[in-house]
C-alpha cells in the first residue's frame, strides 16, 4: 500500500480538514485501508462485478406527465435565493 496523500483525498471530497486533524484522519485511513487490504488475495479473475444485488429487471414506468414540485417548493430550503434562483457568490468575472 502506498502512502495516503490526505490533502489530495480531502481535495477530491471537497473537504478542508483543519491542519491539526490531518494526521488523525490520515492515520485512521491508513489503518482502515490496511484492514481491507485482505481482499487483494481473493482470485476474482473470472468474476463480474455485482452492481444490483437482486439483478431484477429494472421496471420502466410509462412516460406520462405528472405534477411535481413547484419552483417555490424547490427553493423553500435554499440558504439564499434571488427570485427563482439559488443565490451564490459571483462565479464568472
Amino acid at each position, binding site marked *: 500500500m502506498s502512502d495516503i496523500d490526505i490533502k489530495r483525498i*480531502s481535495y477530491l471530497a471537497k*473537504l478542508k480538514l483543519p491542519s491539526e486533524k490531518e494526521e488523525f484522519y490520515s492515520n485512521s485511513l491508513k*489503518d*482502515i485501508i490496511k*484492514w481491507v*487490504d*485482505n481482499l487483494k488475495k481473493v482470485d476474482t479473475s473470472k468474476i463480474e462485478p455485482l452492481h444490483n444485488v437482486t439483478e431484477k429487471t429494472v421496471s420502466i414506468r410509462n412516460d406520462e406527465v405528472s405534477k411535481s414540485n413547484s419552483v417555490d417548493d424547490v427553493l423553500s430550503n435554499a440558504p439564499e435565493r434571488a427570485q427563482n434562483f*439559488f443565490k451564490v457568490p459571483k462565479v464568472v468575472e
Partner: protein
Amino acid sequence: MKNSISQIKKDLIEKKISVSELYDEYLAKAKSGNNNSFNLVIDRENNISSINESQNRYDSGNPLLLDGIPLGIKDLFCTKGIRTTASSKILSNFIPNYESFVTQQLLNDGSIFIGKNNCDEFAMGSSNETSYFGPVINPWKNKNSQKDNLVPGGSSGGSAAAVAEGSCVASMGTDTGGSIRQPASLCGIVGLKPTFGSCSRWGIVAFASSLDQAGPLTNCVEDAAYILNSINKHDFNDSTSSNHQREDYLIDINNSLQKKIKIGIPSDYLEDVSDEILNQIDNTKKALSKHGIEFVDVEFKTTEYALSTYYILAPAEASSNLARYDGVRYGVREDGESLDDIYLNSRTKGFGDEVTRRILIGAYVLSAGYYDAYYRQAQKVRRLIKNDFQRILNEVDFILTPTTPNEAFKIGDKLDPISMYKNDIYTVPTSLAGLPGISIPSGLSKNGLPLGVQFIGNYFEEKTLLQLAALAEKELSFNE
C-alpha cells in the same frame, strides 16, 4: 409484555381506549426524552386531524391496517413539512416538501407519527454515538453496573430505544449493514431488514444505495408483519424497487410452516464467540428442534472478506451520495467568499468525524489508481459472497446466526473505528447478499442485558421468514 398492534387495535375497536388517549400515552413518554431517542417530537396540534379521522374510522367500524397506531420514524425518512436532519448538522434546518414512499404508506394506513427518531449521522455508526444531537441511551441497564449508560446500537438506535422504552409502538428504521437488526438485538426487540428492493428507498436520505433498505423495529414478530404489509410495495420512483407480487405477511403468521424446514448454522460464524452468544444459538436450536425442524452445520467461504468488502463499497457509495451537500440548494450554508469556499466550509463544518472519515475512505477507493484495486475488486468479491449464500440456501431453507458478537456496551467504550465496525460481522454479509434478515430477542446475558439471534431467508421470502421467527419468538420469549 408491551401491547402488540393487534391487541391495541382490539382495545380501540372495543373502546377500552380512544385513539386520542392512546396517542397521549405515547406522546408523554416521548416528550420525557430520558434516552434522547427522538430528534423531534411532533406537536399534538399537527396530529389532531389524523387522530380525529382515525377515531371516526373506528367509530364507523372500518379501521385501516395501522389505524391510530403511534409510530416513530427514523430521522432519515423525509417527512413532508417536518424537519428531517439525518442527525447531521448539515441538514439540521432541512424541511422536506415531500413525503418518503415508505412513510406515505404508513400514513395511508392510518398510523400516527410521534416524532423523528435519533440515529447515527447519515446512518453511519453502530452505536448511535455519531449523532449531531448526542448519543441515544439504551433503556436497558447492566444489572451489575446500574449507573452506566449503554449504547442502543446503531444506526437506528433511537428507533430501537424508543420501542424498548415504550414511546412508540413501532418505529421505521433503515439497514445498510445491520442498522435495524443490531440495535434491535441490543435493545431486546424485533428488527426486520427485508430483501433489498422490497421497500422503496425514495425519500430516504441516501447512504449506500446498493445496500440501504427500510424495515420495522417492533415489539414482536407479528407487528413486523403489520408494518411490512403496509410498506412492502413496488415504487417506480426507486429504480431498484422490485415489481414482484407481494404476499400478505400477516395472514397465517402463527400457523406452522407448510413444509419440513432445514436450518443451517454457519460454523465459521461461531469461531471465537463467547459462551453466552453460543448459548443463544444452542437454545434456539433446542427450542425449534422440538417442532421437527432440522439443523445442519454449514460453512461460508467468504466471511473473512465481508467486512472489508462492506467498508469499501459503503463509503464509496456514501462519498458519492453525500456530494450533494454543498450549502447551495438546501441544508446549512457556511460563509465563504467564493462558491468554492462555501462548498468547502459547509461540508467541512457540516459533517461529523465518522461521516468525514467515510467520505475520505470513499474518495480514496474511488480515486484514479485505486479504483480497480479496491472498489472494483470489492464489487467482484461481493458477487462471491452472494454466490456463497446462494450455495448454502440451496442446501437449507434458512440460516441461523447470532445478531451481534456482544451485549450492549458502554457509551464511549469503543473509540477505534475498526473495533466498532466489527460489531456488524454477523449482519453485514446478509446485507451484501441483499437477503432478508430478522433479529429476535433470544435471552438475557449474565449482566441481564438482551441478546438476539438472526434468521436469514431467501430472496423475497419474508413470509416464511416471519413465520419461522414467530415460532422461535414463542419458544424463546423472556420477560423483562
